């Protein structure tokens, strides 16, 4: 199992590096822009916070983007939330299905290792990649704060990155379950799913009828503006997300163990 885990990690390392440097790098660049835009943002902050539903959706009604916390939550929070979820979806959705899509399954599954061990090795690889992605991005954002000379809001920042990590694990779990079903990698569907979750969260914050169902979406407990404005953690959303993740993983294990493998 170790050998499969190492091989997967090695084969996906380029993708991990590209995505983490791209997402973390964009977030880092956004942060650096803060000092040059600080004056202009201050002038716009009031306007942004009074734009009704738009302000609610992006959290600008609770946080001022003129502050580094508000700026990070609205700008970097959007980049990291979207980029991280897309990365998690992308790596998970192909992890099992690629063996059949690229016809390597007959080689792998002819080796004396159980399908469950293969699924476990691949699931651990996804987890490791998401953790590494989070660590690289965290390092880049923290570096941004240091270069700006701004004090890092350690508690909120750590909470945000931790909840984003949990959210990415949930999205990866859902896509991993999809990967166990299909023999073709559903790249488009996985990216679409991440975007739908993001959109659902945006809409849920502006449409009153949707608000009570906001907890269904994984973005609900990892929302940057909620965390940086000190709002109470939605335990219901977190528990729901945890259940979905466990159900999806169990499904992937059971289904993949039982299904016929395509040639």
């Amino acid at each position, binding site marked *: 199992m170790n050998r499969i885990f190492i091989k997967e990690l090695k084969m996906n390392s380029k993708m991990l590096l590209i995505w983490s440097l791209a997402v973390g790098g964009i977030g880092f660049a956004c942060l650096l822009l803060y000092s040059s835009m600080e004056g202009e943002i201050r002038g716009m902050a009031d306007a942004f916070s009074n734009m009704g539903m738009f302000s609610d959706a992006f959290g600008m009604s609770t946080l001022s983007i003129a502050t580094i916390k508000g700026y990070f939550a609205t700008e970097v929070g959007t980049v990291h939330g979207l980029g991280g979820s897309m990365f998690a979806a992308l790596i998970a959705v192909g992890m099992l299905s690629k063996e059949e899509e690229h016809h390597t*399954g007959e080689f792998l599954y002819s*080796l*004396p290792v159980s399908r469950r061990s293969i699924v476990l090795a691949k699931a651990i690889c996804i987890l490791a990649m998401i953790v590494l992605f989070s660590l690289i991005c965290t390092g880049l954002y923290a570096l941004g704060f240091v270069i700006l000379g701004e004090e890092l809001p350690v508690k909120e920042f750590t909470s945000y990155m931790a909840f984003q990590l949990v959210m990415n694990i949930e999205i990866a779990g859902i896509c991993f379950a999809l990967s166990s079903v299909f023999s073709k990698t559903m790249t488009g569907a996985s990216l679409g799913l991440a975007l739908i979750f993001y959109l659902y969260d945006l809409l849920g914050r502006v449409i009153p009828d949707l608000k009570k169902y906001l907890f269904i979406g994984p973005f609900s407990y990892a929302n940057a503006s909620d965390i940086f404005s000190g709002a109470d953690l939605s335990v219901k959303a977190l528990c729901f997300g945890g259940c979905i993740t466990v159900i999806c993983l169990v499904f992937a294990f059971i289904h993949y163990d039982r299904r016929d493998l395509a040639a």
Partner: protein
Amino acid sequence: MNYVIEIDNLTKSYGKNRGVVDVSLKVKEGDIFGFLGPNGAGKSTTIRSMMGFLRFNKGSIKILGMDSVRDREKILSEVGYMPSESWFYDSMKVSEVISYAADIRGKDCSKEAEKLCERLKVNTEKKIRELSYGNRKKVSIVCAMQHRPKLFIFDEPTGGLDPLMQRSFFELIGEYVDNGATCLLSTHVLTEVNKYCKSAAIMRDGRLTMLDSPSIDDDEFLKFYEDEVEA
């Protein structure tokens, strides 16, 4: 008598489509068993059921005395399998693929792998993506043989191999069989069966017919294919 493969009433369907129907087969220890049949007859379905890739609807498969479902991993540690299409991870080097297979088996196969690579003229420094179809087949042969399995299962192994390599391949099979291994050889090439196999069976429309002798003539052999086309 020791049977290495014992298949009883194997039935596998793909939804409404026929796979194989009531296939029963026994292969003796030390045999080189020719497994013939037209495309779509059910040869690969039978082999893939033996390997545990497919869950069959009815029947039982015993390999080396073990149940193919319950003891799958134990069986695979004693089996060398070569699929009809040899695909590996493109970004890996040949040497990495060979050692990856050996590592998962938990065996040091380096000496045997080196011998096989030399005999089959495999360039281990090349990346898989740089290999031709025939050279990928050779890597597949090394992966199937390097752990000196008790049973070889080859699904159309010689396609893409040049005549010299085909000869080397059958020489290797002969050497392993002389040392106690058994071989199931699925092929379309009648001359291979006539020349190398000790017993044979032919599949048609998902059903298996044992042949009295592996030495059948072309006309009798082609009759199976013609009937398939007409059907």
